């Protein structure tokens, strides 16, 4: 670790917070339907969207109707994206002449993009036509992020209202999220990215003749427009197989700093918007502090583990000064690589600037644990807020039990029904992750996909299900996911990881909304100070360490000691 490395990390984090404060104010206005400086330009487009869709923007929905709208929209996206991939061979903008995508892979990829996961069992430059990348994948990068944002603000509204039957209008939340927030930011970012070296062309490839006279076919395409929303919408699906490690997706250190900034920006700004909407910015600050502590802890461990390097290789005569360089690009350096890798898994982004599979055992444990916690530090667009709010509800309940009072959060009493719904949401994760991992390691078809054996093999499978369940999308890429077994099970993990989680969350919103908002009294447990931060961190540690310690001990932890002992598999 170097001072300069930490300066790079701090520069990005300070810039994120500085930009997130005004952006958070803006998001609060956008999601409350208020007028902003963008209104004169965007309101006409917005009205066209409502008119053509038959949406009455003034009419709000109860939680059931809101949930049905969200599910209907996701279903329409699932079917249309599946069809587009299957039919791409017959459609225009297919300069590489790719055939339709196979059914199992098309199912997996469609679920992946509508759930904001962007897990990729394919290499983009060898599978998807330009039309599929643009009119399929890029579209869902926008709308799946806006769907997450919509649900988060529906839950926030439930806490701010008193005795309310409605939590907002899904179609309005979705439309405003894209039109006022994601699209304008993406336009600016995409153009900066082109200036930084990310291609944007409708050509498929350029053929170069090397100085030695050999041919090199270089894939290009409309990359920048997808790259911008890939980070801003915490999506993470790369245009190329190597994702942001590809020089055309991560051309230089400063572009990757900008990408790390972009993927943290909206999640952090959303927490600030939350503080504003609930009328006490300190409530946002305590959640942000919790997320920040976990994030910085993660960066420290990953950065230290990777600069410590791999003693097995050092013993062979490899200079250890640069740390572990297998699966890393020289232009980023260890510090930025660590920051990006923690940011991408602390949010639900999942884009990568290094191959996580080749991290040292403890280095790989950090992104893995970030995802096992459900990507809440600071979480995906929208998903981070509702994820941490569910944990906050559980925290006040536990605190209430300790002092023997009825727990309250933001003036709302937390009772049996709320606790049941919160636990229902939380418990779906270990069921999917541990269940599918357990079955996969018992099946030959599950093990045939491995690229590594020994404890690292278990880590590959565990990482895949942790990533898909938490809708992250990064991978220990050695695992061959494009098989019938993994296309199906990873697809199911993504589907239930999203929808079996958010339906209880929206039910929780409905249940909280109808309650009377009680003013804070001397007996109210304060949730805007360091005591609450400590308790929330404690709940996170107890909940997730207890659930996952056994399997982590068999994977990355035992591998760490094997590495120190010089044992290879």
């Amino acid at each position: 670790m170097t001072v300069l490395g930490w300066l790079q990390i701090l520069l990005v984090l300070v810039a994120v917070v500085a930009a997130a404060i005004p952006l958070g104010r803006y998001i609060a206005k956008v999601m409350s339907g208020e007028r902003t400086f963008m209104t004169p330009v965007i309101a006409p487009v917005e009205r066209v969207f409502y008119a053509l869709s038959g949406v009455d923007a003034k009419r709000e929905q109860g939680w059931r109707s809101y949930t049905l709208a969200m599910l209907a929209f996701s279903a329409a996206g699932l079917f249309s994206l599946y069809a587009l991939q299957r039919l791409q061979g017959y459609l225009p903008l297919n300069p590489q002449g790719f055939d339709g995508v196979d059914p199992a892979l098309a199912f997996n990829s469609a679920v992946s993009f509508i759930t904001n996961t962007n897990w990729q069992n394919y290499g983009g430059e060898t599978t998807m036509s330009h039309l599929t990348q643009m009119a399929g994948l890029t579209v869902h990068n926008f709308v799946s992020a806006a769907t997450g944002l919509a649900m988060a603000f529906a839950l926030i509204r439930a806490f701010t209202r008193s005795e309310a039957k409605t939590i907002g209008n899904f179609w309005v939340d979705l439309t405003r999220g894209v039109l006022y927030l994601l699209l304008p930011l993406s336009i600016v970012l995409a153009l900066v990215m082109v200036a930084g070296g990310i291609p944007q062309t409708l050509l498929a490839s350029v053929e170069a003749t090397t100085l030695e006279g050999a041919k090199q076919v270089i894939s290009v395409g409309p990359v920048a427009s997808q790259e911008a929303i890939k980070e801003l919408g915490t999506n993470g699906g790369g245009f190329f197989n190597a994702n942001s490690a590809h020089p055309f997706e991560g051309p230089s250190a400063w572009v990757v700093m900008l990408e790390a900034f972009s993927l943290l920006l909206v999640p952090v700004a959303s927490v600030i918007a939350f503080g504003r909407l609930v009328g006490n910015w300190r409530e946002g600050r305590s959640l942000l502090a919790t997320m920040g502590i976990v994030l910085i802890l993660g960066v420290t461990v990953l950065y230290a583990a990777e600069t410590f390097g791999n003693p097995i290789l050092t013993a062979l005569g490899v200079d250890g000064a640069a740390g572990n360089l297998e699966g890393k690009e020289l232009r980023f350096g260890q510090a930025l690589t660590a920051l990006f890798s923690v940011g991408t898994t602390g949010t639900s982004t999942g884009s990568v600037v290094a191959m996580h599979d080749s991290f040292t055992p403890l280095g790989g444990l950090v992104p893995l644990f970030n995802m096992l916690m459900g990507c809440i530090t600071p979480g995906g667009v929208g998903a981070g807020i509702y994820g941490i709010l569910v944990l906050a509800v559980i925290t006040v309940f536990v605190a209430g039990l300790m002092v023997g009072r009825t727990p309250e959060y933001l003036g709302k009493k937390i009772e049996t029904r709320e606790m049941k719904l919160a636990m229902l949401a939380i418990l779906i994760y270990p069921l999917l992750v541990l269940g599918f991992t357990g079955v996969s390691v018992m099946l030959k078809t599950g093990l045939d996909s491995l690229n590594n054996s020994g404890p690292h093999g278990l880590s590959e499978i565990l990482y895949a299900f942790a990533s898909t369940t938490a809708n992250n999308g990064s991978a220990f890429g050695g695992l061959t996911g494009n098989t019938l077994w993994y296309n199906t099970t990873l697809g199911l993990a993504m589907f239930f990881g999203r929808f079996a989680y958010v339906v209880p969350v929206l039910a929780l919103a409905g249940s909280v909304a109808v309650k009377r908002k009680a003013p804070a009294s001397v007996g109210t447990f304060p949730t805007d100070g360091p005591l609450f931060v400590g308790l929330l961190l404690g709940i996170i540690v107890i909940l997730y360490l207890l659930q996952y310690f056994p399997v982590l001990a068999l994977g990355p932890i035992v591998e760490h000691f094997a590495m120190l002992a010089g044992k290879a598999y």
Partner: protein
Amino acid sequence: MLSQLRPAIAMIVLFTALTGIAYPLAITGIAQVAMKGPADGSMITRNGTVVGSALIGENFATDRFFQGRPSATSAPDPKDATKTVDAPYNAANSSGSNLGPTSQKLVDRVKASVAALGGSPAKSVAADAVTTSASGLDPDISPAYAAMQIGRVASARKLDAAKIQALVANNTVGSALFGNSRVQVLQLNVALEDLDPTPAAAAPAASSTTKPADNANAAAAPAAQ
């Protein structure tokens, strides 16, 4: 649910038109007009021929050129489409090795590379010289790895090592806060060619998609994703 069907379908169509067609095409239009070079992939042209992209590494295999890091990229086997063969710096299929830190394959591969470069436990070699990059297309090497190659290039080209040393220094980039100090291999090799052109007949006609690198890719596992 049925009452939600119309907005669901209409919104998918509208967002596809706006964010899937209009947005990427508008960005393409602006980028192609205002920033043609980077928008097309930062290609380097020499004597009217595209010799590569400034951002993408190439498979240099002969002693006359500086060589990049080992690359784990692969290509479909021309004999059997269900299999893949090693094809270093295949810029149409980026990929890392995805070998974990305790992988025997990784240990064997690195051991062979270290030996090929004349290293040993007592005499260590630059780490980037024996490890594959994340994309398999890393355009850069460390100054230490470049220094290891100066003698070889100088004797192959019968040039003064000091001259080559100067070219290396010219093509070393990286300011403190925005990236490591590193040497751009393709730009360095173009500068070498400008100084000392290879006679046309001497250039080997090998194809980069079939010729394995002489440095260390023999054991790299072709990863499927």
